[in-house]
């Protein structure tokens, strides 16, 4: 009887040990891809222009593979939206972007024109107009500092996502929707994806956004 109990205890201990090792292995396996896919290391947003400034697409890549996550996004405004040499109207110049100081990625920006969840980007010029430097560019939505909505008028409010026609357009930034008025929570999905891939706040990440005409992003 004692022998039986002793063997039972031994096998129990063994089982616990095996289980612990399994848990550890699983934890390592689960954690490893996130570590490898830190934004900028093959994990990036890819913006592709549409036929109009309001119907581009933002595609999310993990470790150089499409994650299956995409969202409608916009950049540029007015008839000149498709020329990135045109300041205040054209979409972002093409190429790779890094997050930029002082904000990098921030969830509670409180500027006069742009608030809430943002990715602040480096300066960039289209190769065809190298001295037309575009500055102060973001990936963002229209929301308040606390990720809410401020919609005081019937018209287009700066911190309110009212409509596709109004709000995907920008002076040069990339904009995605806020879950107001039944729109998809694209900014939330983007922020969650960023966090899940190890993206932090206020930290520099190189090559976290690629802007292209329809086509692929070749590694930087």
């Amino acid at each position, binding site marked *: 009887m004692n022998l039986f109990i002793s063997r039972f205890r031994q096998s129990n201990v063994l089982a616990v040990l095996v289980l612990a090792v399994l848990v550890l292995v699983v934890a390592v396996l689960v954690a490893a891809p996130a570590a490898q896919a830190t934004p900028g290391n093959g994990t990036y947003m890819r913006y592709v222009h549409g036929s109009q400034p309001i119907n581009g697409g933002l595609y999310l890549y993990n470790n150089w593979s499409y994650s299956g996550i995409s969202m409608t996004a916009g950049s540029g405004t007015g008839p000149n939206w498709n020329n990135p040499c045109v300041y*205040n109207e054209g979409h972002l110049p093409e190429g790779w972007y890094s997050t930029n100081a002082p904000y990098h990625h921030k969830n509670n920006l409180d500027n006069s024109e742009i608030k809430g969840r943002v990715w602040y980007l480096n300066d960039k010029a289209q190769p065809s107009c190298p*001295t037309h430097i575009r*500055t102060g560019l973001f990936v963002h939505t229209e929301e308040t500092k606390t990720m809410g909505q401020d919609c005081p008028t019937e018209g287009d409010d700066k911190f309110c996502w009212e409509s596709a026609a109004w709000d995907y357009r920008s002076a040069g930034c990339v904009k995605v929707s806020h879950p107001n008025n039944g729109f998809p929570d694209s900014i939330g999905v983007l922020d969650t994806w960023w966090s899940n891939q190890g993206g932090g706040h206020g930290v520099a990440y190189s090559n976290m956004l690629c802007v292209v005409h329809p086509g692929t992003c070749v590694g930087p």
Partner: protein
Amino acid sequence: MSRWTPELAAEGEAMGFRRGWVLLVLVAVGVAGCAVPGLVGPYAEPPGAGSPPDGAASSTTSRVTAGEIRIVEGVLADDLGVAPAGFTVEEGALSVGGRTVRLAHPPMDALAGGLVPEVVPTFDGSAVYYTMWESWEGLDGLEPGEIGGVPVIRRVEVATGADEVFRRGSYAAAVSVDGRVGYVEDLDGAYRYSVPNPTRVRVALPDGSADQVWSTGDDLRYVTVGWAGGALLAYQVLEGEYPVTFAFYGPGESRLLSDGGVVVAISPDGSKALLVEPGAIADKTHFVVVDPTDGSVLASADFSTPLGPVQGTYAGDWVGDRIVVGPGAGDGDRYPYVFGFAILTYREGSLSLERFVTLDEVSGMVSLTSPRFTPEGNVWLQVTVVMTGSDSEVWNCWEAVCDPESGSCQAVTLARDGGEFAPVVDNWSGGGRP
């Protein structure tokens, strides 16, 4: 010294100017999407519908002409006329007041992003100011905070050809009728990559003396636009390239003219400025005529066409009672954007749409910029076309002149892939053009 006028520009050295175009087309000095010029010129007004004198907004529907751009070889037909202010041509030569001026360096856009001209003649035609870069090697490989280049304003004496530094670490010269030079000075003396590059608005006499700071604060970025009489207009550029337009009157004296708006054109007497603003409805642009001396709204209007709302932006032109505005119409949603230009008229507190000409005929066209009236009343403009090959893109810049009645345009190549053309725009005001 002869006074610089469009007529003089078209005469005298005009032949040389045109020979320059021919050479340019033949030699095809490389590059780039067109430089995007700035604005400003004179103004006017017509009969018909428009906004009431109290400034209340109105919306009008007007006739649309379907224009067509025809590419021609060599030069444009003589009877179409040329832009009253031209572009630097072969080897940096340009025509000012009947004289050919050669610039010692290629003009280049500094940090104004095309919002303002790169080359500015003085009102009397005696000098030219232009912006160029020293130590410019592009942005590639720069780390945030590293110097990317030093913008420099140079001054050229037309009579002697003397070409000297006016201000280093500065850009966006704007010359008033009385010769005062407004400009912005980078507080750090150079462009630093991917960090804020705040500027001060300064005003100096032509010899550089009596240089005063007119703006306040050391953490803002301004870009000087042009003079409306004694008021120096400037943009404060916020993050997201958001513009705020101010009028400066002296050291520490300024007034907000528009939050989010940009300047389309300034009246020839400097008493009015046409601005275009996002408007309460974001798919429309809102046109506003303001008095720069007190910021009061003299007229305002939105304009609709069967192709959607008229869209306006900076770098239009105002001659007599007519104002030409680009780059087209549409809202990017129900009405896809189309390229074209609108001719507005301003008279006695009323702003109205005379006609809209659409030019959405060219494959690969990505922008229409800087529409300006020719002395013949036609419309000169710049068009950028991207030709996509199997694995590359070529950005070509055309100049086109359009007859607004028929919509018929002729276009020639201004620059092919590799070259950048610097706009020369008269941004003085007050009797500049009738």
